[in-house]
């Protein structure tokens, strides 16, 4: 539900040797089983069943790869995710920069605005958005409306990531130095601030991609055939194909998480997908 970053190691406590108590081992085993068993079952299910008296193997995967709907929904979701990243960065990077530089007293307001998407979850927002956007058919009936809405759900994660990045650099000194060297405010943003914010932008954007790829509520209620909606529809009648698609979706999300982990700041892990539940 919230974007949080937890250090994977704690230096103060490092160097703990000795043995774990049985009590601790018990909880670790329970947790690992809870984590692994559904994944194992999903994987087994996706290879299960038989086709023409042969075991299925990769059959279900090949079936879904051959489905033109798989390709169209997958690319629609990729497109939506990238558009969400583009719009949210174009909107938030200059805004966050401007607020830090010129309007620091607005920062508490931004902190408040950036938690609002949690108070108004997708299912609630769509109730207000449908009558509001319906008159504007040129956008309402096109899938491009989805990235425009998803920007709202990317806001908490991207803004917080940018905010943390901007706090970490001495923006005032940097921009004064840049201005003294004859740069405009825009030049400062592009040539000085952006390179310093690279990591914040990348990690915020990867979480945004995950939201754009995984969002189900709004795209299904507006009847757009995105990847999660496609998996949902397949699952209504074809259990094995749905399992294979879930494996693909899972690998995709984890690919993004690993990307985050590798690019992230010194081994932190982040979670974000309130919008996909």
């Amino acid at each position, binding site marked *: 539900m919230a974007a949080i970053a937890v250090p994977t*190691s704690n230096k103060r*406590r490092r160097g703990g*040797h000795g043995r774990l108590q049985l009590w*601790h081992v018990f909880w670790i085993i329970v947790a690992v089983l809870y984590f692994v068993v559904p994944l194992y079952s999903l994987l087994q299910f996706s290879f299960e069943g038989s086709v023409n008296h042969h075991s299925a193997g990769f059959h279900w995967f090949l079936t879904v790869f051959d489905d033109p709907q798989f390709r169209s929904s997958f690319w629609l979701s990729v497109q939506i995710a990238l558009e969400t990243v583009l719009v949210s960065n174009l909107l938030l990077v200059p805004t966050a920069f401007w607020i830090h530089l010129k309007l620091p007293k607005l920062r508490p307001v931004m902190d408040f605005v950036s938690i609002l998407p949690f108070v108004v979850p997708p*299912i609630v*927002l769509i*109730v207000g958005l449908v009558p509001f956007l319906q008159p504007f058919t040129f956008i309402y009936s096109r899938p491009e409306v989805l990235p425009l809405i998803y920007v709202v759900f990317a806001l908490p994660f991207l803004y917080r990531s940018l905010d943390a990045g901007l706090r970490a650099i001495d923006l005032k000194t940097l921009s004064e130095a840049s201005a003294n060297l004859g740069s405009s405010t825009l030049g400062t943003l592009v040539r000085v601030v952006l390179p310093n914010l690279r990591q914040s932008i990348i990690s915020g954007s990867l979480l945004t991609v995950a939201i754009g790829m995984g969002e189900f509520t709004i795209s299904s209620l507006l009847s757009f055939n995105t990847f999660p909606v496609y998996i949902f529809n397949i699952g209504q009648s074809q259990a094995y194909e749905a399992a294979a*698609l879930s494996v693909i979706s899972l690998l995709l999300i984890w690919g993004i998480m690993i990307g985050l982990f590798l690019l992230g700041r010194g081994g932190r892990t982040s979670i974000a997908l309130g919008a996909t539940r």
Partner: protein
Amino acid sequence: MAVTTAVEAAPEPVAVRIRAPKSRRSWKGSLRWLGVLPFAAYISIFLLIPTGELIVDAFKGANNNFTTSGITAVMHGQYLQSFTASIELAALSALFGGVLGFFLATAIVARGAPSWLRSTMVTFSGMAANFAGVPLAFAFTSTIGVGGVITVLVKHFGINLASSVPLSGTLGLALVYTYFQFPLMVLLVIPALDGLKQEWREAAENLGASSFQYWRRVAMPILLPSILGAMVLLFGGAFAAYATAETLSGSTGNLVTEYIANLLTGNIIVNTQISYALAFGMIVIITVLMIFYAALQRRANKWLR
């Protein structure tokens, strides 16, 4: 609008600077606000105005008159039941996730725990907490659904898992939600556990306290606001969730989120005011949760900076 204003006004500052520097500063001060205009406009269009209209519409009658009939309607009968069902599911999954997540977190930051355990478990928690929605639902169908791997396994012992714990029921859904709830709990309470000072434990031990006494008398009172705060967040996330539940329960679902969806897609035809009132009810509940969370957070920060 923003662009034209800026262009028309552009020649002004030079003249103004020569005459009165003070007024230039205030003029530039108001120009500053233009910088947040695109963001303010965007958020107004896609978040603030639709939400505001929804709240107003929840109190609007058939001829635009003010009425609380919609609100009264959703506080009774099937609508009230949908709220109760959602709250029960959210509470149960927050409880499961909270308990498992808390004990796992204490295990991975325990004194005897090797450091690789922490990095492994935190990474896994990040991955599991991100596994939600439609794919998670199918993972559990393959596990404890009708033909699920575990269901088939325990059938040999005469247990019919799929009918005793149906995935579309409250307990079944709570077990599914626990999959992303407990890793979230781990990530939320680890910072609080890190905040417990080694000295407190040593002091308790020097005074002859057992491990249980230390947890009961020292650690728990300090951690309780953090634990409850984290569980409030888990509750809120589960309360607002839709995708997972819709995949598993389909048209039989009776959660408030599923009710709203059915109203929107026209599966149920009643007056539209009901969907506004249900959505408004969700906003009220989540707002109360957020206030509760903020208060707990303040308490938590007293000891754990």
